[in-house]
């Protein structure tokens, strides 16, 4: 589904990704771990198409298409979803309104008719029930005055509504207390599907206690230095990132 080959990217004059490669197939859950500044979030932003990140080399193909050629909204239409580390607030714009606009933009791209307000609310309520969310969420401004946990849960709701093929969840666990973490992780688990790939970007292994990944990759200085199964995360937790760093530079 996703093939990243020797990807190099910089922001300003700082090179952050220095030739990273990764392959992700449908149905898989990959965890990308690494210390601060290793390039985890950059990877997520590059895949989503943030214009601050300049790709200098390498390629990213997604479902056979050259992903780097597509505008951010086109990537979204093609089924790429980024769960933001810091979801922005959009005061005055109703949460339901944004969601409906997003769902309909994607449907339009797929050549499907728009869902009307009635149909939309029905689907939204179902998904919210599935994620254990209060329907009142829908009528609030987008992320406006939401707690950290509410914002992250709202991202998962958007993911549930948009039904992406590839979801990248950037530090979805950061800033969450244990109850919120469990709720968010449960939400993600219900969205695991054979035709959907999920990339979890995380600093800590604790998220992986709740969402079991198929693969774990460790990113250091803009490259994947180690890949393995979930036991790698545990080893990392025990030995710390210095261990990887030493192994990489040794």
């Amino acid at each position, binding site marked *: 589904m996703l093939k990243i080959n020797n990807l190099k990217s910089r922001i300003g004059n700082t090179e952050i990704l220095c030739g990273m490669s990764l392959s992700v197939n449908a149905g898989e859950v990959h965890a990308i771990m690494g210390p601060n500044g290793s390039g985890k979030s950059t990877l997520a932003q590059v895949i*989503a198409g943030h214009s601050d990140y300049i790709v200098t080399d390498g390629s990213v193909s997604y479902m056979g298409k050259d992903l780097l050629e597509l505008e951010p909204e086109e990537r979204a239409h093609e089924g790429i979803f980024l769960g933001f580390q810091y979801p922005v607030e959009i*005061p005055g714009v109703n949460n339901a309104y944004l969601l409906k606009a997003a769902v309909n933009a994607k449907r339009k791209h797929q050549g499907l008719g728009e869902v009307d307000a009635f149909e939309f609310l029905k689907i939204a309520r179902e998904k919210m029930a599935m994620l254990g969310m209060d329907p009142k969420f829908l009528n609030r401004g987008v992320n406006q005055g939401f707690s950290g946990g509410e914002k992250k849960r709202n991202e998962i709701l958007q993911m549930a509504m948009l039904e992406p093929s590839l979801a990248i969840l950037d530090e979805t666990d950061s800033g969450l207390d244990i109850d919120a973490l469990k709720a968010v992780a449960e939400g993600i688990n219900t969205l695991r599907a054979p035709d959907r790939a999920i990339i979890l970007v995380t600093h800590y292994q604790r998220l992986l206690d709740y969402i079991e990944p198929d693969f774990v990759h460790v990113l250091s200085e803009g490259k994947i230095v180690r890949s393995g199964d979930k036991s790698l995360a545990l080893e990392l937790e025990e030995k710390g990132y210095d261990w990887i760093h030493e192994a990489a530079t040794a």
Partner: protein
Amino acid sequence: MTSENIESIVNKRYEHGFITDIETETFAPGLNEDVVRAISARKNEPEFMLEWRLQAYRQWLEMKEPEWAHVHYPPIKFNEISYYAAPKSDDDRPKSLDEVDPKLLETYDKLGIPLHERARLAGVAVDAVFDSVSVATTFKGKLADAGVIFCSFSEAVREYPDLIKQYLGSVVPRRDNFYAALNSAVFSDGSFVYIPKGVRCPMELSTYFRINAANTGQFERTLIIAEADSHVSYLEGCTAPMRDENQLHAAVVELVALDNAQIKYSTVQNWYPGDENGVGGIYNFVTKRGDCRGANSKISWTQVETGSAITWKYPSCLLRGENSVGEFYSVAVANNMQQADTGTKMIHIGANTSSTIVSKGISAGKAQNVYRGLVKIMPQAHGARNHTQCDSLLIGKECGAHTFPYMEIKNPSAKIEHEATTSKISADQLFYCRQRGISEEDAVSMIVNGFCKEVFKELPMEFAVEAQALLNVSLEGAVG
């Protein structure tokens, strides 16, 4: 003044050699007493009206153009403007939509204005400079049954001189300001509304204003009188074709609400704003004022201002009657080189009067957007209350938003609240929306509409839809 003089001023009549009235067109540029007399004569006005105009003209001569507004423009040459432009003959106007500037039609298309309306706006076969006459005609029977008068100002001067004598200039005196005095001298037409005691006007009254001819000023005059216990909602839409030179629009609107009466006045203004480089566009220097003369009366102004090169406009309320209520809801958009200096004045005179101000200013491009408001509590206005909310939204890096709230509080029992915010549409917000599949333009429009929601909900339904569409058109290309 002799009739020969009048004829010589109406020069185009001779140029084209036509004699019938319908062929009369535009007066030669310039302003003097003869022009004022000629306008009055053209409209078959009674003597009192001419006298009133002449006094206004003489007062205007002694007045100075105001300079306090936060707007910049080269001096207006008042002698190069033509002060009267009657409907053009059917020979000159476009015969069908095919002959209308396609760019203008494109705009109407984006606004979702229905075809027959587009024809009307584009000046096809209808006198669109002032169109309420035809609207009034359509529903004349229904309105007459209710006792409502809705007609052109000229007709009111001839048919209802007593009402005109009693109310004209009673809210905005002739010498109120430079442009009000000019308007009082040379106003061409406008609309007149009279709602009798106890009547709830059975429909929304609406007017489309349009400046058609080049090099002309437009000076319309609107007077709305709501007798005790009556209710009326009035809508006005404004549009103008694109021209290279600036055109002056100086209107006066007076509203009078007697005991328990309510007037709701909504405007969607889309005068031509000039191009991206600031060439052309309307100078919109307007005086709008409502007088809550009676106890428990209410006047509510709602405006969506997207057009004009320069807007200089402060719809105000004089809250004289006890418990009277004034409201002002405004969205002002300034894009490219547009300048807007707009706001309101709430003058609390009666006891327990209250006012609400909600102003939303949006600036994009290199535009400057100013909110200027006055809340004045007079010594006898015990228990007066005001709530002001003033929000600015910036799109891009080169625009500006300025807020000048003035408060004059002369009664210690007053309760005044003022809230102000300034925000920007951030790159992060746009990227977030785009990642969700929403295009940048749709995202901007969504954010702007969210910002304006409180004002849009005050507009009558069909106007709210038009206002949203208008906003999207006005801000097209504002990002990126």
